[in-house]
């Protein structure tokens, strides 16, 4: 990995370069656990999350055409299917798909997009906490 052509002059900046590189990688793959994310959202909402409210929220169409379940399935322990393109979607419940809710930036990006599609607005921290609490309650 160490570039051979670096002169000693440049060499003293190498640690900084590696720092930049690793910082970028860390941002790209900033890891978290679903439990940590739940704690963050509940903290922002300043209220404990409710799994049953989360389930209701997830399966309700909120007056529009789609619910979260339209693409993720009513019980997202199995894979879903995109409601308009038909593309397969892997399970959303973390116990059935360990990659879920481990990348905060990805989670925020999809909450933003999908909430706008379903509710024509962004979800509140309380709604995100409820949904995540419900998803975490789904066990094999």
């Amino acid at each position: 990995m160490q570039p051979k052509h670096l002169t000693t002059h440049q060499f003293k900046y190498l640690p900084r370069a590696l720092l930049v590189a690793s910082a970028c990688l860390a941002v790209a793959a900033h890891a978290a656990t679903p439990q940590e994310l739940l704690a963050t959202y509940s903290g922002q909402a300043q209220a404990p999350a409710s799994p049953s409210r989360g389930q209701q929220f997830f399966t309700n169409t909120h007056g529009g055409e789609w619910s979260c379940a339209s693409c993720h399935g009513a019980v997202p322990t199995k894979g879903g299917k995109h409601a308009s393109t038909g593309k397969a979607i892997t399970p959303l419940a973390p116990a059935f798909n360990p990659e879920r809710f481990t990348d905060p930036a990805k989670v925020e990006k999809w909450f933003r997009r999908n909430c706008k599609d379903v509710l024509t607005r962004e979800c509140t921290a309380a709604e995100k906490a409820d949904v995540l609490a419900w998803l975490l309650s789904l066990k094999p």
Partner: protein
Amino acid sequence: MPNMPHLISRQAMRLLNLLGLLVGLGVATAAWADDDRQARQLPLLPAYQQECASCHIAYPPAFLPAESWRRLMRTLPTHFGSDASLDTETAAAVSDWLSSHAGTYKRVRETPPEDRITRSRWFIKKHDEVPAAAWARPAIKSAANCSACHPQAEKGDFNEHRIRIPR
């Protein structure tokens, strides 16, 4: 001297790009050449694979002209009835990459209605054997769901010998 950290961080960026390239190299796609059977393998930009292949396959850049790609990339928050919004930096990188690999062959040069591959004249012609009712079958849902009938579409392979229309 004040330039030095700048220079080095460019090197770091190059390192990251290389890393990204290696990740992307695993996935290739075909380009729409003069001969449809002659598939050119093109490694996908990792950001394109990551951001544009969640709701549908990563469509081969050569299937639309640059103008269509640029317009699509400018209107992501209202993308065919879906919010596909991206941060401006990623959107710019993907847009540049798509337009530099866009279709230039004459069949692809004109922008199709809605900037849809599926409404291009060449697409309609190539698919005239597909019965109209087939597009709506639950296993297909949409003409944009290429992989329903082209099992290798994800890899950019649309070869007519591997087509399977689900019942």
